[in-house]
């Protein structure tokens, strides 16, 4: 991690952490799976936002997304040459409410990918999941548990929430990389968690300090922001936390986490080596090892690419119809 800041001294790239997965590091099946989950959740966000009939929401969420982006530039030295800065999901969810916060984080991630290539395009679904949905839902859920308590308790809970949310995000990145066959889980999980324990500390401190500032100067802001459906989000946050926490030891306890996950969940078996297993040995089994078979396999591979694109756009269309 300490490599990133020294490589990119430009403050606007301060956000280039290991949480922004570039294209090429996840295989297609995992990428699409993540898109599927992210789109399903975002469809819910779009629907619920539109149901509120509040014309203010679009400029509010857009400008707050720009704020998260700009706030990521504000850093402070933590230790050993690393500097802490905001990732932002927990803060965005607290201030904007979960649904709008989710949309704002999606905008942040999309812009970082499109404008600065900070994070890939085809893996954007995964990045939205990792940096927007998972940490936001977890952070917000934990924060919600502390509502109604004293200010100190709320701030402490916010800090803990922010820290856990970053750790969870790091864990999910490791799992995705492992499942894609890009890294071995037994190495990736401890490495990612170790690095992000420190990054999470920055996130925790800044989120809590920012919230404390807002509580002092504009207390009404954090009070009416999140009156709706509190219980639901506490439960959602708990469930996501549990899911992530359960996956981790299970995956890393086995001698080779990757193999284990692949064995346990049959579909990941295909995922691990997508190009090979979809068209084994570049040939079609029923035609045997002939030249025709090889060329046909190539053609099918090419068609597959087109098909995937088609599917992608069909998926993109879905949330629209829902609204």
């Amino acid at each position, binding site marked *: 991690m300490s490599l990133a800041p020294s490589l990119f001294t430009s403050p606007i790239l301060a956000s280039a952490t290991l949480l922004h997965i570039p294209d090429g590091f996840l295989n297609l099946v995992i990428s699409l799976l993540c898109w599927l989950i992210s789109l399903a959740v975002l469809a819910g966000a779009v629907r619920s936002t539109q149901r509120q009939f509040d014309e203010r929401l679009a400029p509010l969420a857009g400008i707050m997304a720009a704020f998260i982006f700009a706030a990521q530039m504000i850093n402070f030295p933590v230790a050993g040459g690393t500097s802490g800065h905001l990732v932002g999901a927990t803060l965005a969810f607290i201030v904007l409410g979960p649904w709008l916060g989710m949309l704002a984080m999606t905008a942040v991630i999309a812009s970082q990918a499109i404008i600065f290539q900070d994070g890939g395009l085809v893996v954007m679904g995964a990045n939205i999941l990792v940096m927007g949905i998972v940490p936001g839902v977890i952070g917000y859920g934990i924060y919600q548990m502390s509502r109604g308590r004293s200010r100190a308790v709320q701030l402490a809970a916010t800090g803990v929430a922010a820290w856990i949310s970053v750790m969870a995000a790091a864990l999910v990145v490791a799992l995705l990389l492992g499942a894609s066959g890009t890294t071995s889980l037994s190495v990736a999980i401890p490495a990612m968690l170790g690095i992000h324990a420190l990054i999470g500390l920055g996130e925790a401190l800044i989120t809590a300090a920012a919230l404390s500032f807002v509580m002092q100067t504009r207390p009404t802001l954090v009070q009416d922001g999140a009156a709706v459906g509190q219980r639901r989000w506490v439960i959602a946050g708990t469930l996501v936390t549990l899911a992530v926490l359960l996956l981790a030891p299970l995956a890393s306890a086995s001698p080779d986490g990757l193999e284990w996950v692949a064995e346990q969940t049959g579909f990941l078996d295909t995922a691990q080596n997508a190009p090979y297993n979809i068209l084994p040995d570049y040939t079609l089994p029923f035609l045997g090892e002939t030249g025709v078979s090889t060329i046909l396999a190539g053609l099918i591979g090419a068609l597959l690419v087109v098909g995937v*694109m088609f599917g992608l756009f069909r998926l993109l269309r879905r949330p629209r119809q829902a609204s």
Partner: protein
Amino acid sequence: MHANTFDRFEHRHSLIHRLDPRVKTVITLLFIVANVLLPDGAWLAFLAAWAFLLLLTVLADLPLFYAAKRSFIVLPFTLAAITVMFTLPGQPLLSWQMGSRQMMITDAGLLRFVSIVIRSWLSIQMAILLTAVTQLPDLLHALQHLRVPRILVAIISFMYRYLFVLADEAMRLLRAREARSARGWAGKSGGTIWWRARVAGHMVGQLMLRSLERSDRVYNAMLARGYDGRLLTLNPHRMQPGDWLAGVLAAAVIAGIQLLGRLPPI
């Protein structure tokens, strides 16, 4: 320093710049997907993909290695893939003793690692190219045509507009902090970590309040011009025959590269 120097669009009047943004977006995604699908060690296909990319760069009137020079942002992430060299079963290429552990790089592992890095490197170059030849507003129109929900497009468009304004504000805050702290912030600086975090957190909080106030004023400015909840835009882009042709050609090339990557080694 003005934040808008970070805008990556390159003003040119090339063939590629004039293409419909939808074609450019879809082709970029197609290229990246196809890349990810290429098998490990498909060197010829990797090379062909890069050649295609360079061809596009030239057609876009950009310096030949424009994208390559900006592609190093993936570097830190390659660290994440290094482990695969050691863990993938295969013929040992290199092995040494490290402490009590026997470290071993396998041929399959090395092949996988290099392939991952190349795929990623090709993908990011394509993304860099897309950004250099398409203004973000056009890209947003493309997204809208491609059925991304209107509210999300609107949020990204507001974000893009105010990103630079707020980044400027953040930089002013950072400069003010620098000016007031005698020992500077770059290295070890005064105060405990708590104190430093508090200062940074208050800056973030301040920026947040200003942003909220700004969103109020922007909303007012929209109201003043008749905004009633509908976000209307003109759709300036119409697919021309040339756009279709370019799209089909590019897709054919990408499919060809895929074919090349899956031909049996000679």
